[in-house]
């Protein structure tokens, strides 16, 4: 494996590289074909009224709606509202979760006391709390409340588990030098848990987005969740689908962003 770059160096190698390239192209072609076929079928079925375009919308209509809303500027508004809420909720959940995980790691007693509570909080469907949050936190904060509630327990659990899974020998090593607990945390536990931290981000960004959308379902002035609910209320499936489409874009983009961060960190860390 110590061999280097890509230029083929023998007939066998050239053949191999050709085969790999052809394989990649086939995959890309299949992916594109699936997408195009699905869209075309959808469009056709709606045109021919095999399905009711009124119920299922139609790619061309979604596109029109997208263009119209984009040109009117309110698509941008709804998107940025949701995005901003998501990023704030994400940051808040991360800070709170990290702090709590450090506290649990620090105090064994605390972590043992908290354990059953965490299990229960982790397993319960936070979504059910939506209506209650709304009452307790109000229309502005309930979106963030929902976003944090839905993501923070996972963050705590993942980080704390990560902290505890740090190779005890790294800690033993620091102890042979006489390290304090704070030094152990700073020099071994936190840096060693960086990959865990990032995989918790990966889970959380998605959960936060769910929380924000649900929060917007309950109460909102704007945002993609608002658009979906409002679109449903006035039965504008085009609008709903457009919002869902943007939402898919956002969620995929956020996920890929965190994944890119993850792989760059992992590449550096080996």
């Amino acid at each position, binding site marked *: 494996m110590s061999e280097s770059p890509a230029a083929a160096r*023998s007939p066998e190698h050239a053949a191999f590289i050709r085969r790999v390239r052809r394989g990649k192209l086939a995959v890309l072609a299949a992916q594109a074909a699936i997408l195009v076929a699905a869209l075309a079928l959808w469009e056709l079925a709606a045109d021919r009224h095999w399905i009711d375009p009124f119920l299922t919308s139609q790619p061309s209509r979604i596109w029109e709606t997208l263009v119209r809303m984009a040109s009117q500027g309110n698509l941008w508004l709804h998107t940025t509202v949701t995005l901003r809420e998501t990023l704030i909720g994400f940051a808040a959940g991360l800070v709170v979760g990290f702090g709590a995980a450090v506290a649990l790691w620090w105090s064994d007693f605390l972590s043992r006391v908290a354990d059953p509570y965490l299990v229960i909080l982790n397993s319960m469907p936070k979504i059910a709390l939506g209506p209650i949050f709304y009452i307790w936190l109000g229309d502005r904060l309930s979106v963030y409340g929902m976003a944090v509630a839905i993501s923070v327990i996972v963050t705590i659990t993942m980080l704390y588990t990560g902290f505890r899974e740090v190779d005890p020998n790294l800690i033993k090593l620091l102890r042979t030098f006489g390290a304090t607990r704070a030094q152990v945390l700073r020099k071994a536990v936190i840096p060693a848990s960086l990959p865990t931290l990032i995989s918790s981000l990966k889970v959380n960004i998605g959960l936060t987005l769910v929380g924000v959308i649900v929060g917007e379902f309950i109460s909102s002035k704007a945002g993609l969740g608002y658009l979906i609910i409002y679109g449903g209320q006035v039965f504008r499936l085009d609008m709903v689908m457009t919002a869902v489409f943007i939402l898919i874009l956002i969620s995929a983009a956020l996920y890929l962003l965190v994944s890119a961060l993850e792989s760059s960190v992992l590449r550096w860390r080996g």
Partner: protein
Amino acid sequence: MNDTKLELRDVGVKYVTLQGETDALSDLSLAVRDGEFVAVVGPSGCGKSTLLSLVAGLVRPTSGTVLVAGQPVTGPSRRVGYMLQEDYLFKWRDVAANVVLGLEVQGRLSAASRARALGLLDKYGLSDFKHHLPRQLSGGMRQRVALIRTLAVDPEVLLLDEPFSALDYQTRLTLQDEIWGILRRESKTTILVTHDISEAIAMADRVIVLTKRPGRVKTEYAIETGNGAAAAPLRRRRESAQFARYFDLIWKELEAHVGESGRG
């Protein structure tokens, strides 16, 4: 020689990946007699495991031919048993179920073949552990179970890839002795790959030293033990004069490659 069990003729293996290509073996020729015990040593990454995979039919040669009992190798065959570096027992099967795995896969599991496999367990002191799970066994016992799993399908040729490297020093010495005995009694043709020169000397009839990658045969030593019949490994080690002489010879042979060839 018509008692040649296994032969490699001018074999070359080239691995291709996107990053580049690796010549693992090139122009390697080797013949092993029926019932012979051959050890292969060589620097890290010189293609020892590749050599075994060729014989096992898991890797096709890029050039040259591999013959087992005169037949070209085209894929995994019942004639050849391959024991990997670690035991790879299936932890959800008990010892008895692990031992018959090969028979099961080959669709040859019958009352008779099962009895034969369990008979091997008895014969090699593991009958009390038939219903134990692998994790309840010591490393040495696990390795013996893995050997019996390989023997259960009754191969004519046995390939061992560093079978003792995961064991601690003392267990290793004991197990070398035992497994050597088992193979001799079952009279298998064996190729043992190892990093441990003393292990090679202690167990084999012949030690093959490979060059660094791409591997080919560099030298070979027929190991002459004091008395006519081959002596058991531990006994050989104690006949220190001869043992040390071989050790020294092979050590020098390999020394060129040592330095930073760490595998960690």
